[in-house]
């Protein structure tokens, strides 16, 4: 395998890792709010979070390209063609895959354990970290793996805003696409197979862990 293709795989893993971390940090409070809030217009937020599930990635990529470009009008450097730009795109693109499992896990925890914790003198923050987090562990596992895997499979958004820069925005899916378009089917196969094996291994690992977690907690 060519070094540039290998680097594309590494970049994909880096993008998935950074995006998943950002998603967990931003997604946890959002999911918590969605699980606990009684605001009558909460459904609008639910719908907005689910949008990336139904929108073609090209729509997202197109609007990001326009948004990044319009920053130039006020003198900001564009985020298109940068790793940071890809992280922003990926966070939006994979948002429902992280927020929805977390929200469902928080809903499943319910109110009684929190009330019990409060009775025992725990602050809400203490209750969250020592009661909710352990109980919602399978949800976090699912959210992490789905967010990571979905970002690894990202293509349309990156194609629109990436600019195919090696080491910066040339991720594996783009490299595979370029190989196919360039009629180099052998190199495309190599990369695609590696990505397939990586994705399957990752999913199998996490689902395996998740099964054990369930056995332990059950």
């Amino acid at each position, binding site marked *: 395998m060519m070094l540039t293709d290998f680097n594309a795989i590494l970049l994909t893993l880096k993008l998935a890792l950074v995006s998943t971390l950002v998603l967990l940090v931003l997604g946890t409070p959002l999911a918590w709010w969605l699980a606990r809030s009684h605001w009558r217009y909460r459904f609008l937020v639910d719908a907005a979070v689910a949008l990336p599930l139904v929108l073609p990635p090209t729509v997202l990529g197109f609007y990001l*390209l*326009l948004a*990044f*470009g*319009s920053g*130039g*009008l006020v003198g900001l450097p*564009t985020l*298109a*063609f940068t790793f940071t730009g890809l992280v922003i795109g990926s966070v939006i693109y994979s948002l429902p895959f992280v927020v929805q499992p977390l929200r469902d896990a928080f809903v499943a925890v319910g109110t009684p354990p929190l009330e019990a914790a409060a009775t025992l003198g725990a602050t809400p923050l203490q209750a969250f970290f020592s009661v909710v987090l352990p109980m919602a562990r399978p949800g976090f596992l699912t959210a992490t793996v789905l967010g990571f895997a979905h970002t690894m499979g990202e293509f349309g958004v990156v*194609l*629109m*805003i990436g*600019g*195919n*820069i090696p080491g910066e925005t040339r991720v594996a899916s783009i490299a595979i*696409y*370029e190989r*196919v*378009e*360039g*009629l180099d089917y052998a190199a495309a196969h190599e990369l695609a197979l590696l990505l397939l094996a990586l994705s399957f291994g990752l999913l199998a690992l996490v689902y395996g862990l998740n099964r054990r977690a369930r056995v332990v907690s059950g």
Partner: protein
Amino acid sequence: MPFPAYHVLFYMLLLCVGQADAAELRVAVASNFFLPMQQIVSAYEQQSENTIKLSIGSSGKHYAQLQNGAPFDMFFSADSNKVYLLEQQELIIPGTRFTYAIGRLALVSMEPENDAGAELGVLTQRAGRIAIANPMLAPYGRAAQQTLQQAGLWEQLQPRLVVGENASQALQFVASRNARFGLVAASYLSMPELSFAYVWLIPDSMHEPIIQQAVILRDSPVARDFARFVSGESGRAVITSYGYHLP
């Protein structure tokens, strides 16, 4: 209520009659040639019963699809290499390969750059990203690379290049103001919704000619007729109006 079988038969007959009268041609066309092609098609459909269905895309994608039996009657490629390869694999109708246009490249910007020097010199005078099509995939990308190499700027400008997968994506990067400059197909300059503040047509001597060829993949009188129309007088008039050279 049961639907009588002879009704079905009647409608099927109607469909057959319709097909005999006016045929439908499926044409795969390279993205840089989409605008002139639309105009040629509407001119053609005014003087003919036949309809032309266009599929826009990068020629590499169309090539891969054609190798796997995509149902196109004709293929207008952005280069000559892919149709040549199809010919080698005996996937085209022999003797139908023809050059329909010779592409031209232009340096464009949404900002007025005229005060920064002349020609390619603006690229070194002004900072900002430079969008090109992928030199490995798109003939306009290869021409852009050759142009910059011939000007001795390729190495120097390397860190500022952003690469679109095809000619139209390089254009998107400039039009959305994410890249300051673009080396794009000159055919896009005719788009009414695009107003570049700076345009410089690259001299043909700066790169190898971008020879765009077409082929018939599934033979029919309509395909032959349309091929004649494109290389005929009205086709040629449209093609030159979009800045292409004629073969």
